[in-house]
């Protein structure tokens, strides 16, 4: 378990930054349709904010926001969500990952594809967040100094 930082500056700055980082990460994920951004970048930013809270505030307080046991399952859920979107398209008569066949009440196949891309971006973001935090936690847990 990581100990909290002794520095007041680190504690105050990271406590101020973390919520804004997370909101901006959501913006990056959902802005991927209109400009630079997307699931990979946004998920990495969420993971960065969670890792910052672990390093600056200490493992005990960071666990309140995101438990270290959640990392690997969340990574699996995100990757499976992506694969499931593809399978849903197969079940409704299309090819794998052909979002035009998703069962949403929309007539325009182009609009359906837009929503399909949004779903997979969310899946990618969840997978990235879970996996990166899990890797950090695994590295720290294996380290003797942080027990």
């Amino acid at each position, binding site marked *: 378990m990581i100990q909290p930082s002794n520095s007041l500056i680190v504690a105050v700055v990271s406590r101020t930054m973390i919520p804004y980082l997370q909101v901006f990460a959501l913006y990056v994920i959902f802005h*991927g*349709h*209109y*400009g*630079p951004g*997307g699931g*990979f970048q946004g998920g990495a930013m969420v993971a960065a904010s969670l890792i910052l809270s672990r390093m600056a505030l200490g493992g005990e307080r960071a666990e309140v926001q995101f438990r270290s046991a959640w*990392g*690997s399952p969340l*990574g*699996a859920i*995100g*990757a499976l969500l*992506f*694969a499931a979107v*593809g399978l849903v398209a197969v079940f409704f008569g299309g090819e*794998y*990952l052909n*979002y035009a066949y998703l069962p949403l009440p929309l007539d*325009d196949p*182009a*609009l359906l*594809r*837009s929503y*399909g*891309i949004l779903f*997979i*971006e969310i*899946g*990618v973001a969840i*997978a*990235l967040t*879970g*996996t*990166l935090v*899990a*890797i950090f936690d*695994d*590295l720290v*847990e*294996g380290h003797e100094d942080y027990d």
Partner: protein
Amino acid sequence: MKTLGIILLLSFGALMVYASLGLPAHGDASAPHHRDASVTGSPGAAAYYIRNAYRDAKTINMVTVTLGDYRGIDTLGETVVVFTAGMVCYLILRRKKE
């Protein structure tokens, strides 16, 4: 040994710079990868993506359309690669609780 390493590194860097001089200019519309068809006549994908990305997916960012829709299985593979890295760290580094 150290000098040899530095010489190798510098010569490889020079090779990379020399190779980059042969690349087409940024945004060059007549570059080979932007043409409708290659030299041998096979159709090129990039020109199709640029013309039809908005029509096909109603999404302004054509990079997102390419990654998420036209090349969706690639992106799925990338996600699985990241997840695999996480699983490998889990299996190798995580210690069992006694």
